[in-house]
C-alpha cells in the first residue's frame, strides 16, 4: 500500500476484478497464489484464459495451480523479484516496447529509473533469479506487445524486507507499459482478509485517520479534534510489529486486541509468547479461546459475521452489506457494541468539547456509525447503508450521495498528479541459505484453511480434507533425505523448530520448502523472523533459511524449542 501511495498517490487496487476478467488481454500474476487465496477471483482468471485466450504469465518460486493455465512460468528464486522485474523492463526498453506517449504525458522520474534498469541485462538477471534468459525475453515480449495487461500480486510481493520496493517496481512496470487508468490493466494488490481494505480505510493504521488522512497533518488533526472534542496525538503510532517488542522495551503496558491472534499470525512465535506474557494487561475480544487467549486477562465474547449487520470493503474497494442472520450465542455481543460500552466507561468523568459533533458514543446501530464515517472520511462520504440496501454497487472514492463510485482509479490523471518512477535496486533477502540452514522456507496459507486457523480448524468437513500441517518439499530433496510416503520432517530455523508430515510435491523447487501457519502444533511462524520492510513494517515471511531432517513416522505433531 505504501508503495502504490508513493508512486500514484493512492494505495489500493486500481481496477475491478470483473473488469480485469473481462478486459485484460494479458495478465501478470506475481507473488499471488490466487486460486487458493482468492479462489473465486482465481476461477475468474482461469475462465479468462480458457474462454478468452488471455495470455497469463505467472512469476512464483512455487509451481502453484495457476501455472497450469499460464503460457509462461517464471520460477524466480525467493526474494529476487526486483532483479526479475528490472530484467524484464530492460528488455522492454531495449526493444522499444515502452509506451513513450504515456511516459511523457503522465509520469516523472523516468530517466533516473531507466539508468538503474539498464544495469540489469538479462544474463545478470538470469544469474540472480534463476530464470532462463530465453524466458525473460518471452515474458517481456508478451508484456510489451499484448495490451492491456493487468498485474496482480499479494503477500508474495509484500512480505519481504524490500516489499515496498517490489511494489514500486510493479508500479514502474505498469507505467512503462502505459497500462494505468485503463480497463483491463492496472496495479492490483489482492487484499487478504475479508475486510483488511476496510480496516485500513477506516483508520486501523498508526499513521492515518479514516480515509488515509495523515495524523501528522495539522489540518487533518484539527478536523478530528473538532469532530471528537479532544486533543489528538500529533505523532505516528506503533505498528503491530513494533508494539509486540515494545512490551519488552517498557513502551507498551496494555493491549486491547479485537479478533486477532498474534500467537499464530505474527513472526517468530517464541518471541511473541515472551512479549504477551510480560504485558501488564491484555484485553482480548474474540469468538473462540484462541492461542492468544492464554495470555489474556479479560476475554470478551464477540460475534461472527453471521451475527451482525454492517459493511465490509473488498479488495477492489467495493463496500457491501453484511446482514445479521442469527443471534450471537449466549451473552456474546456484536463487537461494535462492546467497543462502544468500553469507551463510555473510560470516558466517564472526562470533559469533551461540548460542541464537538462526534464526541459522543451513543450509537443504536452500525447505521449510526456509518453516518459518522460519511461525515469524516471523504472517500466514504456517499456510501450509506440506505444506498447499499437499495442495491447500489459502490466502490470508493464515493465522495457524496450522488456519486456513483469509482471502479477504476487514476483514469486520465494519477491521484498525485504525475505518476512517479522510482529507480529500484536488487537487495538480497535478510536470511540466505547457509551450510547449516541450506533450505529456503516460504510460508502462506492453503485453500482449505484461513490464517491462524481458529475458524477452519473448527469446520469439520474442512478438517477431513486438510486436517494437519503439511510441509511441501521437492521430490529431489525428499529422495536425498530419504523421505517417502507418510514420513514426518523436522524443519528448523535459527529461531525454532516444527515437526509435521511431508508432502513430497513438485509444487516447490529443489532447495525450497513451504509451510503454513494454520496449526498451532506446527506453525511456520515458530521459524520466521521479525525482520521488517523499513517502510511498510511487514515481516519477511517469504524467505527463512531452514534445515530439514527426517524424523520417522511418529503420529501427532509436536513442537520443540531450539
Amino acid at each position, binding site marked *: 500500500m505504501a508503495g502504490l501511495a508513493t508512486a500514484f498517490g493512492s494505495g489500493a487496487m486500481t481496477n475491478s476484478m470483473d473488469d480485469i476478467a473481462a478486459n485484460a488481454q494479458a495478465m501478470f500474476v506475481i507473488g499471488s497464489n490466487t486460486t487458493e487465496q482468492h479462489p473465486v477471483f482465481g476461477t475468474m482468471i482461469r475462465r479468462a484464459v480458457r474462454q478468452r485466450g488471455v495470455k497469463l504469465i505467472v512469476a512464483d518460486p512455487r509451481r502453484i495451480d495457476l501455472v497450469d493455465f499460464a503460457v509462461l512460468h517464471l520460477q524466480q528464486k525467493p526474494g529476487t523479484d526486483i532483479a526479475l522485474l528490472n530484467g524484464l523492463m530492460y528488455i522492454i526498453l531495449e526493444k522499444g516496447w515502452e509506451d513513450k506517449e504515456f511516459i511523457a504525458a503522465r509520469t516523472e522520474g523516468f530517466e533516473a529509473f531507466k539508468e538503474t534498469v539498464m544495469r540489469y541485462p538479462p544474463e545478470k538477471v538470469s544469474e540472480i533469479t534463476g530464470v532462463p534468459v530465453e524466458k525473460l525475453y518471452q515474458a517481456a515480449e508478451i508484456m510489451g506487445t499484448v495490451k492491456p495487461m493487468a498485474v496482480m500480486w499479494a503477500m508474495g510481493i509484500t512480505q519481504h524486507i524490500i516489499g515496498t520496493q517490489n511494489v514500486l517496481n510493479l508500479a514502474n512496470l505498469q507505467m512503462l507499459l502505459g497500462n494505468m487508468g485503463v480497463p483491463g490493466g492496472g496495479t492490483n494488490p489482492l487484499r487478504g482478509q475479508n475486510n483488511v481494505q476496510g*480496516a485500513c480505510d477506516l483508520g486501523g493504521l498508526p499513521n492515518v485517520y479514516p480515509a488515509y488522512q495523515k495524523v501528522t497533518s495539522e489540518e487533518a488533526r484539527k478536523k478530528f479534534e473538532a469532530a471528537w472534542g479532544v486533543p*489528538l496525538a500529533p505523532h505516528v503510532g506503533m505498528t503491530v510489529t513494533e508494539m509486540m517488542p515494545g512490551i519488552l522495551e517498557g513502551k507498551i503496558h496494555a493491549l486491547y486486541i479485537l479478533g486477532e491472534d498474534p500467537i499464530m499470525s505474527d513472526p517468530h512465535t517464541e518471541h511473541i509468547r515472551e512479549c504477551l506474557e510480560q504485558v501488564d494487561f491484555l484485553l482480548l475480544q474474540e469468538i473462540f479461546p484462541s492461542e492468544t487467549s492464554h495470555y489474556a486477562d479479560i476475554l*470478551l465474547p464477540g460475534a461472527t459475521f453471521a451475527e451482525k449487520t454492517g459493511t465490509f470493503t*473488498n479488495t477492489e474497494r*467495493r463496500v457491501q452489506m453484511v446482514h445479521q442472520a442469527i443471534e450471537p450465542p449466549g451473552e456474546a455481543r456484536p463487537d461494535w457494541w462492546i*467497543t462502544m460500552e468500553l469507551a463510555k466507561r473510560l470516558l466517564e468523568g472526562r470533559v469533551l468539547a461540548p460542541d464537538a459533533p462526534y464526541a459522543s458514543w451513543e450509537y443504536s446501530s452500525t447505521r449510526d456509525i456509518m453516518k459518522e464515517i460519511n461525515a469524516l472520511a471523504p472517500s466514504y462520504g456517499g456510501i450509506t447503508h440506505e444506498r447499499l440496501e437499495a442495491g447500489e454497487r459502490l466502490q470508493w472514492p464515493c465522495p457524496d450521495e450522488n456519486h456513483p463510485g469509482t471502479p477504476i482509479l487514476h483514469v486520465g490523471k494519477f491521484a498525485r498528479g504525475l505518476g512517479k518512477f522510482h529507480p529500484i535496486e536488487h537487495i538480497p533477502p535478510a536470511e540466505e541459505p547457509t551450510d547449516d540452514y541450506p533450505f529456503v522456507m516460504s510460508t502462506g496459507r492453503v485453500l482449505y484453511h484461513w490464517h491462524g486457523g481458529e475458524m*477452519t480448524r473448527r469446520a469439520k468437513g474442512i478438517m477431513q480434507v486438510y486436517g494437519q500441517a503439511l510441509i511441501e518439499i521437492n521430490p529431489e530433496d525428499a529422495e536425498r533425505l530419504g523421505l517417502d510416503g507418510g514420513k514426518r520432517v523436522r524443519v528448523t530455523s535459527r529461531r525454532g523448530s516444527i515437526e509435521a508430515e511431508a508432502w513430497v510435491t513438485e509444487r516447490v523447487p529443489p532447495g525450497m520448502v513451504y509451510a503454513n501457519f494454520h496449526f498451532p502444533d506446527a506453525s511456520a511462524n515458530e521459524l520466521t523472523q521479525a525482520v521488517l520492510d523499513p517502510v511498510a513494517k511487514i515481516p519477511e515471511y517469504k524467505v527463512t533459511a531452514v534445515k530439514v531432517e527426517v524424523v520417522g513416522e511418529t503420529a501427532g505433531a509436536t513442537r520443540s524449542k531450539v
Partner: protein
Amino acid sequence: MISITLNGQKIEAREGQTILEVAREHGIRIPTLCYHKDLSPTGNCRICVVEVKGARFLQAACVTQVWDGMEIETHSEKAVASRKRTLSLMLANHPPDCLTCDASGSCELQDLAYEYQVEVPAWGAKGTRYPVDSDPNPFIRVDMNKCILCRRCVLACAEIQVRDVWGVAKRGFEEVIVAGAGTTMLEARCESCGQCVAYCPTGALTNKMSYGLGRAHQIEKVTTTCGYCGVGCQFDLQVRDGRIIGVASNPNAPVNGMALCVKGRYGWDYIHHPDRLTKPMVRRYLLEGKEKPKTPLSERSASALWEWVETDWDTALGLAAQRLGRAREAHGPDSVGVLTSAKCLNEENYLMNKFARQVIGTNNIDHCARL
C-alpha cells in the same frame, strides 16, 4: 432486427438470439432443465422443445436461433405432449423419493412434473441403480440415482470453476456422470467449491452438511458478504430455528455470481462450534482487586488467581476500563496498544480507531494487514 411470429404474435428479434431468449424477453415461459443462463446451452434434455412451422422435428428452444419469418408455437399440443413424454422417461429412472429428498421444494424436475402433471410411469425402473451417497467428499452428497443427465454439473465445473472434475461415461441406458475416470471427486482434483451442487436441478448433488436440516420452504435466507478472503463474495445464509444450516449461491451477487469457494460455501460450521465464547470472562485476580501476579505462563493453569471466572458484562467492562485507564494514567496514552480486526465490520474498525485516538489518545492502532 428480424421479424418472427411467436404464439401467433408478430414480434421483433435480434439476429443470433435463440428462441428461448426471445421468448423470455417477451414474458413467455418455455420450461427448461439442462439450460442455465450462466452455462453453454447443450440442448440435450429436450424439455424446451417447441414447434417451428416447416421444421421436420420439434426444436430445442435453448439452442435454436431465430430466423426472419420464423413461426413458433411454444405450447402446441405436440410440444406439450413431447415434454410430458420426456418427463415420463426421466421419472422412470428417478426414484420417487420426494418425501425424504433434500431438494424437494427446490427441485426443477419436481416442479415440471407438477406443472405437467406427470407421474412416475407404472413401467418405471424400480430400486436404485447406484449407491446412495456414493462419494466420500465431506461436503458434496452424490446420489446418481436422482441424476437426469442434464450435464449442468459437468459444465459448471468446466466453465465456472474451470476444474473439469465431472464428465460423462458410457452411453445409452448405462450413461452416467463420473468424477475423473470414475474415481472419487477429491482424487479427480475436486476443490470442493460446490458449484456443481449449486447448478444441479435435482437432488443428485446436494450439500452433505445441510442434508436433512431443512427444505426450501422451511428456510429463511439472509443475503450477506463472506467473512473469509478479500474477494467479497456474497451468498445467502440459510437459517432455520435460529441456526445456520447452510450457504446457498445468490445469483445476484455482484462479484461472484453463483460461484463460491470451499471455505465460503462449506466453512461455516465454526459459527455453532461448542468452543464459542458465550460469556465475558475475567481472571480471578482482577475480581479480587489484586495486581497481576508474576506467574510464568506454564504455572498459570495451576494458580487460583489465574483462573477464568465467568462474569456479567458490567463487571467485565468495568474492570477492562479500569485497567486500560490505569495504564493510560500511569504510563501515558502511548503505553496502550490497540489491534483492530480485518475480520470485523467497517463500522467496528472505525470505532476502534476512534477508541484509540479519542478515548485513549494514542495512534498506536494497527491490524494484521502486514501479516
